[in-house]
């Protein structure tokens, strides 16, 4: 065999466009955020912006409220979505994937439209702009993101696990808590991260459905950047950076949980 000439189109060449996109739209903005976060009003390096994040009571309160509203909506969503996913994945309904689709179709409608519609519906039954309304909005909007991963895990779960459990003497309730639930944890974790993290940075829902006191940190960042005052860019970037770290921590915890439940790849060696 003679040596082949280096071909122009190596497989790695196909990844260049993606690399370029990633570079322009992810890496560069991230660096910009970092630069702004560490730049003082005079243009020099400073920690002032971060100091401000952790000392300004208003910011801390909003940060706390963001975590609170994200955690509460995620929890409520999980409590509703799990039973729904369980029922949809169970025998008589499983054949009708259309039912699961019904829960997903609202995602196809414009997000703002959905929120407006929900808002008018809620005010019709007497729930005006409030913390409660904001939480309902979050739960409503992110429900499919919670439902789908759990549904997928439950629907694809080997039914013989449940049968083995019942065969070994576990009642249906025991089987659920000892087998079904632990095996569905990866779906639950993925649902939580799909919901918890976007809520951190979303502020449209709280802005439109919450009252004056229900503001999240996303709104604060937006207002800082909308402000023409050049100095607030640095503060806004610092808050964004803190959020980013928080989200990363949540993600790492989630991954650790999943890895613990799914220690090895499915099936194993034959």
């Amino acid at each position, binding site marked *: 065999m003679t040596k082949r000439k280096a071909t122009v189109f190596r497989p790695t060449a196909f990844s260049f466009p993606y690399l370029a996109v990633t570079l322009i739209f992810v890496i560069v903005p991230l660096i910009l955020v970092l630069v702004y976060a560490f730049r003082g009003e005079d243009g020099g390096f400073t920690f002032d912006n971060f100091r401000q994040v952790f000392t300004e009571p208003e910011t801390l309160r909003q940060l706390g409220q963001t975590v609170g509203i994200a955690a509460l909506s995620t929890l409520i969503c999980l409590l509703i979505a799990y039973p729904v996913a369980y029922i949809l994945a169970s025998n008589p309904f499983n054949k009708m994937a259309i039912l699961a689709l019904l829960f997903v179709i609202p995602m196809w409608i414009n997000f703002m439209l959905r929120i407006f519609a929900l808002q008018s519906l809620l005010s019709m039954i007497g729930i005006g702009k409030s913390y409660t309304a904001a939480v309902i909005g979050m739960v409503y909007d992110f429900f499919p993101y919670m439902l789908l991963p759990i549904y997928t895990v439950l629907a694809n779960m*080997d039914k*013989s*696990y449940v*049968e*083995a*459990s*019942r*065969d*070994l*003497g*576990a*009642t249906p309730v*025991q089987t659920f808590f*000892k*087998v079904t639930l*632990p*095996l569905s944890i990866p779906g639950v974790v993925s649902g939580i991260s799909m919901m918890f993290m976007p809520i951190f940075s979303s502020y449209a829902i709280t802005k439109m459905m919450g009252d004056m006191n229900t503001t999240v940190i996303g709104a604060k960042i937006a207002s800082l950047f909308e402000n023409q005052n050049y100095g607030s860019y640095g503060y806004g970037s610092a808050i964004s950076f803190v959020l980013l770290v928080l989200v990363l921590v949540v993600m790492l915890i989630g991954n650790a949980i999943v890895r613990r*439940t*799914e*220690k*090895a*790849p*499915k*099936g*194993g*060696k*034959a």
Partner: protein
Amino acid sequence: MSFFDKIRSIFIKDKKDTAPAPAEAPVSAPAKKGENIIEIKGITKVFDGVTVLDNLSLGIKRGQFVTLLGPSGCGKTTLLRLIAGFETPTEGEIFIEGVPITSIPPYKRPVNTVFQKYALFPHLNVFKNVAFGLKLKKVKDPTAKGGERKYTKEEIEEKVNRALKLVGLEDYGHRDVNSLSGGQQQRVAIARAIVCEPKVLLLDEPLGALDLKMRKEMQIELKKMHEDLGITFIFVTHDQEEALTMSDVVVVLNDGMIQQIDRPKKIYDEPKNAFVADFIGESNILSGVMEKDYVISFLGKSLPCVDKGFERNEKVDVVIRPEDIKISGGKEGGHFDGVVLTSVFKGTYYEMIVLASDYEFTVQSQTEYRPGTEVSLEIVPDSIHIMKKILTINKHLGSVTGENAVTFCGGEFEIPTEGFEVGDEVIVYVPFDAVELTDDEKDGVIGAAVTQSLYKGTYYQVQVYTDTDEDFYIDTSDEWDMDDRVGVKIDGSKVRLEKYDPDAAEEAKE
């Protein structure tokens, strides 16, 4: 000390250990070997309009190793799942030790299952998998509240370790189940089931996923375990060799019906019908005519046999095992003269195909005759097995829907209807050779799936299954592949019609 000695020693010790504990004594009447532990009465199971089990009854004796054997789709796994409680029968009742169990949920039944793909819990390690059932189990203890208590941690640990020792995985308790090989996972699955001390152990093709060598080893080990544990094993397999090697009793199933229940040796030597003969090992199956008692005629020859009790000139199936045919060189001395077509060495014998009287005999012999050699075949009376033909004609209920048109089995066929009027209910008799199969489903009047194809000497007997849940038998010179979709046509001139009279039919039944 060999592995089996180890098992034995563990078990002898085991019996001593557990004997004084009255808590574990059986609740019901004292166990007698030989009585039926499981009684299946008239079980029918229908899935989405398809009858998987058809009015099946079976008794299983305590302590036996019973194998349910049959091709895929014969209903053997369904039967096992009915006993385990994962399915409920459409009709009929199952009794375990005289207690009807069809309304009892699986977690309360005194049976445990070893699943086909093991179904080990991936989130638990080996020890916890085996301990799963024990942690849930309640033991009788008169000193405890309510007369029942759970196993203590120490008891669970002891039992789990003993079960792991029994399957040869003593030091694997802490291991992740996904890190084990197929054979090891299999052993964990067995340990997990027997640690619960079931009265009946159900095994659903447990060796199917193992390689050949491993499978042979596990066959011997399972058999040993059965002897040591003394409980009833019900084993499902489609592998006839496995069934014959391991079982006390083999139940051959096909089409949701029991074809034969017997000891392995008898199943092999005296198959009850052509299906069993074909399914259990290599066979030459031919069509013959019983001339009179002890005389059978096939392939144009009359030969002495040992069977009697058939009607004169009754059509029968003849089964001859390949190892029962005596083959010798030359053209003399035998019943059939032929030519060797192929010869294959099979380890301890040669398997040859011999063309004689237009039939391709499969013959096994220690001596090889090369292809092209002229040989003579001798068949002694003892080795000719005669079986009643299950059916000699297709019989279907239909109605006359037009001039020379009869509708049955979901299609309108062209059949002369002289003497009948439109709207008449008729019984349609279709001889096997009046049916024609077509490659393309659309070319036939109705579509059907091939469920069985048996070579009967000069022709194939094919069984097809129509979409209206009915069977057709066809005699054809072509071989058809199982599960293929085919079209069914009928030569109307060979079909006989008979007026259907419901009242007369009722009487005939009684």
